[in-house]
Structures are given as C-alpha cells and as structure tokens.
C-alpha cells in the first residue's frame, strides 16, 4: 500500500515572503514530471534523457526573459542564491589575482557579508559602504573607492529587511568606467522590480527560486558574456563547465515557470502589493504611537514594510502575532541567536530603543486586502500589551528619559 503523508498547512496570514514564498501551484505542476517519468539525467544519451535537456533549456530562456539578459547562455543554474553570490565573488578574485580589494555595503545579506569577513581574514581588503538613516548610500564615497585595486563590487539590488532599493544600474556604470567588475545580489528584487540586464552594465547577478514562488534549492548566477570567470565547483561539463554537478532538473523547471509567472504579473502585482503595503503602514501607525517605518519610503520594493516599534522586543511581538495567526519576522537579536540586533538597523543608526522592536511584514501577490485589515486590527493591542510589561513604559507612554529611569548596575 502506498503511504500517504498528509501535512496540514498552518492557517493564518503569511507576511514573511522575504523569507520564502509559497510555491505556486502551476510551478509544482511544472516540476512533477521530472521526479517521475522524466527522471533521466540530461547528460545521458538515451530516450530517458531526451526532453529533460529541453526542459532545462526552456527554463533558461524563461529566466533570461525575467532578467532581460541578452543571451540564454548567460544564465547559470546553481543550488541557491548563496552559491551564486559565493561563485560570483570568488570568481572575480581568482580571475583578477592582481586585485585584492572588494567594495560592498554594510547592509548586505550574510551570504555576502560572512564571505567578505572570511576573505578579510585571508588577506583581502573589504570596503563596506555605510548607509544613512534611511538606508541610502553615498555615491560620491563609492566613486572615491573605485580603483584598479578593486576586484569586484557587490551591492544588493534590494535590502531584505527594509526593501530599500540601491541604484545598482548607476553603480555598475560607475564601476565599468573604472574598469571594475560589478555583481548584484538581486535575490529580493528579482520578480518584484523590472530588470533589463542587456541595457545595464551589471556583470553578475544572483537570484533565488524560492523568493519568487519557485522551489527552494535552486538559484541562478547571471554571468555577462565575456566576463572573466572561474568556477566554484569543477567536475562535469554541466552549465558549460561553469557549474559542475548534475542539474536539479525538477527545480530548474519549477524556477523557469516561476520566472515566467513573475514576469507576466510584475507590474500588476507590484502596484497591488504597494497599495496594500501602504494601507498596512498607515493603519498600524495611526493606531500605535512611538512607531515608525524604517528604510527609504520613496525608493523600495513594493512588498516590504518594516516598522520599528519602540520599547518592545521583536521576538515577543512575533510570538504574539503568531498566536494571532500572523507570520512576520524581526530584526531583533533574539530571533537570530546572536546578541546583536540586526546589522541593517544598526547601519541605519536606528536607536536601540527601536531596533530591537523592528518588525518586517513582507507581502506577496497572494496577500489580500482582508488579511491586511486583520493585521491592522491585531497589531496595536499586541504592542500595547508588551509595553505594559516593560520597565521602559508607564501609563501609556515611555518613561521620561528611559536610560535614566531604568538604571541597572551595568549597561
């Protein structure tokens, strides 16, 4: 008898789409044949393999279309966004052995920052561009760092915590004029903002399948034709020898479908999510005092709202939201297992009184207006309740000069 595993999906409102997204039903359908009938290895020379290679090719073209790449061969499938990031940076260093400096930003994803920290220990010099209070870069400071010593610039297209967009197209042009390679981590941007790589100076770009309603375990490195390259994984001839390892055919087919759906709905979904996001922010801020939106409201992803609630701690907010059936995430130290609050909040100089309470609501094309209204109703009592528990809060307002009123022996 065939064993059937049934898993009950949790009910509730999912506003953590920057962490991962639900795989679209059409994507699941596109993947299924490659587990069963079409299980062959695309490299094989028999009928089990025929059709599989075509599926990989079709997915490559679908991703090419989403990114506006000039050639399908510029698309390299990887196992995830992190692998794409590592491949890009390590390739740039190996391909340019006479250059030993990297420019990145203080607010990148750990996939970039942790790698850069390691490279620093190995002797490379890393420049981390700071951001202002709204998470924006100073392009003059950037220009002054570009030099023949820089092997690669790596700057994220959109910030995962705040949604703030960086002017990567302009920064890539500046890098090119200085003869420097440019990589962008577009894991949060791909599928949410229009990308047209053939008209840009971007040399390398990373994306991840599961952020755009595709499966986990699949990513892409875009590599502009002619860019000097050294593979991370060597072995078979897969991906034209640029990424060895048998293709994850089901996930590749799924990502292709997800890219097609994202491109088709890009404008309409973006406008709808932005309207819901704005309603969410307005509704919450109208009902909760001592709260503010972080990041650059004028220039950000349509789906991301990051609200800092002062004098409350993020993990406690998440636990109460979860009990109310709402899934969100936080830049709080306590949710990560580290003792530091989010490096993004710190880079933006968000005061500690607010950084620990920063809460991210990230929408998807599935989010409904009704869900947003339910969140607007649920958040204010949760914040009020936690503030009642806090020694920094008294009778509906923060205590006067909290750092003074609460004076522990050590601080």
């Amino acid at each position, binding site marked *: 008898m065939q064993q059937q595993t049934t898993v009950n999906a949790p009910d509730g409102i999912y506003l953590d789409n920057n962490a991962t997204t639900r795989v679209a039903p059409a994507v699941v359908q596109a993947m299924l044949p490659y587990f069963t009938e079409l299980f062959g290895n695309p490299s094989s020379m028999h009928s089990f393999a025929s059709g599989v290679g075509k599926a990989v090719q079709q997915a490559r073209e679908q991703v090419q279309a989403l990114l506006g790449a000039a050639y399908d061969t510029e698309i390299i499938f990887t196992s995830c966004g992190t692998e794409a990031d590592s491949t890009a940076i390590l390739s740039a260093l190996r391909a340019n052995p006479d250059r030993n400096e990297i420019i990145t930003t203080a607010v990148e994803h750990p996939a970039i920052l942790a790698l850069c920290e390691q490279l620093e*220990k190995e002797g490379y010099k890393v420049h981390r561009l700071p951001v202002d209070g709204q998470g924006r870069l100073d392009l003059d400071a950037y220009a002054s760092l570009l030099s023949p010593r820089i092997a690669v610039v790596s700057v994220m297209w959109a910030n995962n915590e705040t949604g703030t967009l960086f002017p990567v197209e302009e920064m890539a042009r500046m890098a090119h004029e200085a003869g420097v390679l440019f990589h962008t981590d577009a894991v949060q941007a791909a599928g949410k903002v229009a990308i047209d790589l053939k008209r840009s100076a971007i040399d390398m770009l990373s994306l991840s399948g599961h952020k755009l309603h595709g499966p986990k375990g699949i990513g892409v490195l875009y590599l502009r034709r002619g860019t000097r390259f050294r593979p991370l994984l060597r072995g078979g001839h897969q991906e034209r020898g640029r990424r060895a390892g048998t293709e994850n055919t089901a996930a590749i087919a799924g990502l292709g479908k997800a890219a097609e759906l994202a491109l088709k709905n890009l404008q309409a979904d973006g406008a709808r999510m932005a309207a819901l996001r704005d309603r969410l922010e307005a509704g919450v801020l109208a009902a909760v005092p001592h709260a503010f939106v972080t990041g650059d409201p004028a220039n950000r992803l349509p789906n991301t709202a990051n609200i800092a609630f002062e*004098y*409350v*701690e*993020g*993990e*406690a907010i998440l*636990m*109460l939201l979860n*009990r109310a059936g709402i899934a969100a995430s936080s830049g*709080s*130290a*306590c*949710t990560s*297992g*580290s*003792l530091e*609050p989010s490096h993004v909040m710190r880079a933006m100089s968000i005061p*500690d*009184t607010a950084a*620990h309470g920063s809460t991210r609501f990230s929408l998807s094309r599935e989010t409904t207006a009704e869900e947003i209204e339910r969140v607007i109703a649920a958040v204010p009592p949760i914040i009020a309740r936690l503030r*009642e*528990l*806090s*020694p*920094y809060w008294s009778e509906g307002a923060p205590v006067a000069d*909290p*750092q003074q009123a*609460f*004076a*522990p*022996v*050590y*601080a």
Partner: protein
Amino acid sequence: MWEYSEKVKELFFDPKNAKAVADANAVGDVGSISCGDALRLTLKVNPETEVIEDAGFQTFGCGSAIASSSALTELIKGKTLDQALKVTNQDIADYLDGLPPEKMHCSVMGQEALQAAVANYRGEEWRDDHEEGALVCKCFAVDAVLIEQTIRANNLETVEQVSHYTKAGGSCAACHEGIEEILGKVLAEKGQSVSVADSAEPGATGNRALIQRVQTILKVFDDVRPQLKADGGDIELVEVREEKVFVRLEGACSGCQMAGATLGWVQQRLTETLGEFIRLIPVNGDNQPLGGRA
C-alpha cells in the same frame, strides 16, 4: 524558530506577577535596552522575617526573557532572602522545562536581578561580573568570552584543550572553526599560531598532544588517589594506547571485590575529563592484561 517548552509559552502568553509591586522595599534592575533585555524586579520583603511576601517583574525582552522573569517571581515568593539567593539560573531553566542554549542568558538575567534586589534591600552595592559574548558552542552553550578567558588563564593551545576545559566543541564539532579563531587571536598576541596537527600523526606536535593527554590522565589519578589510599590501595599508569589506558592496581585494590567498581568510577572520570571515551584496562605484574582481553 525556537522550540520553546509549553511552560515557557504558558508563562509568556499568561505571565504571573507582571507588575511593579506597589509598596516594594527592594528593587533590582539588570540589563539594558541596548542589550535587548532588561528586567526590573520589585520585592516586598517582611522586615521581621525577611520573607519575600510579594514579587513582581517588568521586562523588556523576548519570549523567554519574559517567561524567565515570571518563573523567577514564582520561585522566590514565600522564601526568605537567604533561601531565595540559593535559586540558580538552572533552577529557573528547570522550572521552565528547559531553555534553548542560546536563551540560557535569560535565566542568568533572572538570577542577577534577584541578587541586585537583595543587595538593594540590604543596602549593599551589587556589581555584575558577568560578561557575555557571542555563543560559540551551541551544544553546551559556551560563549566567546568564556572561551577566551579560559584560553588565557590556562595557556591553552589547541581546540582539543579548549574542549577539555570548557566542553565547547566537545560534541558536534561544528564550532571548531570558531574556537580556532579565538585561539588564533590569543596565540597571535604571543607570536604563536594555532597547532592543527592531528594527534595520530607523528611529529613534535603529535608528541605534545600525547604528553598533554598523559599529564591529564595522571592528574585524574592524583585526584582519585586519596580515596583509593583510604581503602589501602593505589593506581599506577602503565601505558596509553589510543583509547586504552593500561593501569596497575596496587595494594588492597588489586584483586579486591570492588576493583571492577573502582575501575568503572575512574574510567568515568577519565572519560569526562578528556572529553573522549576511555577504556581503563588493569594489567598484572608482568604487564599482561587481566582477564585475557584488551
């Protein structure tokens, strides 16, 4: 996501004693908003009996910080100050049916708030000597500050030694890179670098590892010797071969009915101290294993 116990969730969602005790005569403040955790403990202490008649907490912090604070107040109510001071952070964690290793500091904060409140009541000055670093070993909840202090205090040079002294890295080994990094930083100050020699490999560093191991074994023997001598016996190291430690039992221990129990006890001590499995094998006067198996 943290897997909190039902008890943690219960005390977070429905905390007991979440209040500022109105007529408190003892207040303990610990933590700060920059750390992401802060706790004010207010107590009403009976001046005659020193019994804690009421306790309340106000906490800024995560779910387990709030639950730990609430647990603390439940644990100390009705106790005298001296009884309450015996409450350890482990008691708080036990009351909550355990905390994830990354969250043990929440229970430490509770214990410290109590110490601060008692000091406040008694008009003493309470000083925190607790410094906390990033968590390195998640299996045994050992942080970077403790590892660095232990390396300095004991002039440690290898990851293995760090595991023996702090338990860090003694289980899944995923944090060995992090431990090596701290070692490297401390050793660099002395102009040294981390030895990564495998003790199975011959060579100077391999010998050093062996010598350290033997010294550790002898130290354990020294520790247990008084007890053996009290029973008129003694233990002598004959040889160390991988996990096998050959010993000669002397005096009353030799041939004693309790030899097996004694060996088991010493073997346990060795295994714990070295952080690896050790098999203790008794040999006779001709250095032949007893019982025909080695």
